[in-house]
């Protein structure tokens, strides 16, 4: 049985990962012209690599967030059944 602060830390980690992706998306939409200007100076191979890095980083962050969210749900269920057993 894990303490509720442990569950809170895992939930915060998941939320932070999702928020990071959301901020990346917001920046790329709100500052589209500025980003396009910066990217224009780069070689096209570098543009490809940069784009791929951003999307794969977002994928890794979301995979981490989903794994943490699953852990939170599992721990919460485990704690609830442990409490029920203690009550009996």
């Amino acid at each position, binding site marked *: 049985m894990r303490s509720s602060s442990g569950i809170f830390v895992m939930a915060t980690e998941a939320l932070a990962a999702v928020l990071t992706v959301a901020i990346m998306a*917001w920046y790329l939409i709100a500052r589209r012209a500025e980003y396009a200007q910066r990217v224009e100076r780069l070689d096209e191979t570098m543009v490809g690599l940069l784009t*791929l890095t951003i999307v*794969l980083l977002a994928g890794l962050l979301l*995979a981490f967030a*989903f794994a943490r969210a699953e852990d939170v749900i599992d721990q919460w269920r485990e704690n609830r059944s442990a409490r029920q057993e203690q009550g009996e």
Partner: protein
Amino acid sequence: MVEVATGVFANLYLLAGLGLGVGLIAGFVGVSGGYLLTPILIVLGFPAPIAVGTALALMTPNNLIAVIRHRELGHLDLKMALIMAAGTIGGAEIGVRLLDALQADKGQLADVLVLGALIVTLTGVGISMINEVRHSSAMLRDGCDSDSAAAEGEITTSACSFLQGLCVFPHMRFTKSKLRISGWIVLLIGALIGVLSGFLGVGGGFVRCPALIYLIGQPSMMAVGTNLLGSFIGLTFSCFRHAMLGNVNLGIALVMLLTTSVGTQIGASGTEYVRGLAVRYVLAASVIAAIFGPALKLAWFLTGQEVTWLNDAAKIVTVAQIAVPVGSIIVLLVLAARHFRGADVPGWARPLMARREHAAAG
């Protein structure tokens, strides 16, 4: 409204909502969802190359999440996945160059050809899926569970017996899949799927998975893992090439990724409560439904973009084509929840529900 390409605007909330629906369908049926995404983006006004590039940039990380989730299952023939991926990369390069050449041409040739190729591919795949689902339903009515048959043994078709028998050097042994086949055949199938990936912006799972099972003769469970890794490598390369050509709208891709990935997780969890036949019903329905929106948009292009109701109808049908499979999944999951709790469900739904002990274990 956000600008998605020069002078083209789209509603961000609509895109996010459609992303959630596509994710739910893709997670439920176990594909990357490109066959739904690319037509949606084109119908909503994205130029074809931007639609293809953005769909690829969205599916690549979504596929990565699936690969990470499935890596523990061990259902993966690395040797076959890598040979097929080599072919996919070559084919994707051809697809990307073809689309780039068409884009350079004046007019809407790229849009017309991408939509036309999508409609032909989806019609072919949809018809073969309907036949397979009808065959499985008949087997189930006769008391034979097609799910367990597919899970326990390999499906041997005359095509895979013929291809495995072709002694073209190098005739390779794939130990994990327990079969021998020429490396060239695996490479060629990968290359054909790569052309689809680069040209149409699809992961190719809806073609690769049946090809691995029915043409190469791989066991069904092994085909799922091999397909995921093959898709990921192919998607990564196609995404990189389209990004080099400036065809990716990163902001839209990331916003849609957030909702699509959530939908994928929910859809994937839902498969624990239904049988494989229910999943195949939804897959067949979503593939067939995905034809109508692009067909109306294609008709709009072919009539010189003068019949405006065709364009409006295409948008409405595109939203509906997502709503129908999503609605079916929700109905199936509600019925599965009732079945799992021991409540009565309609007779037609009973053969589609997973056994209670199986769902409880999941």
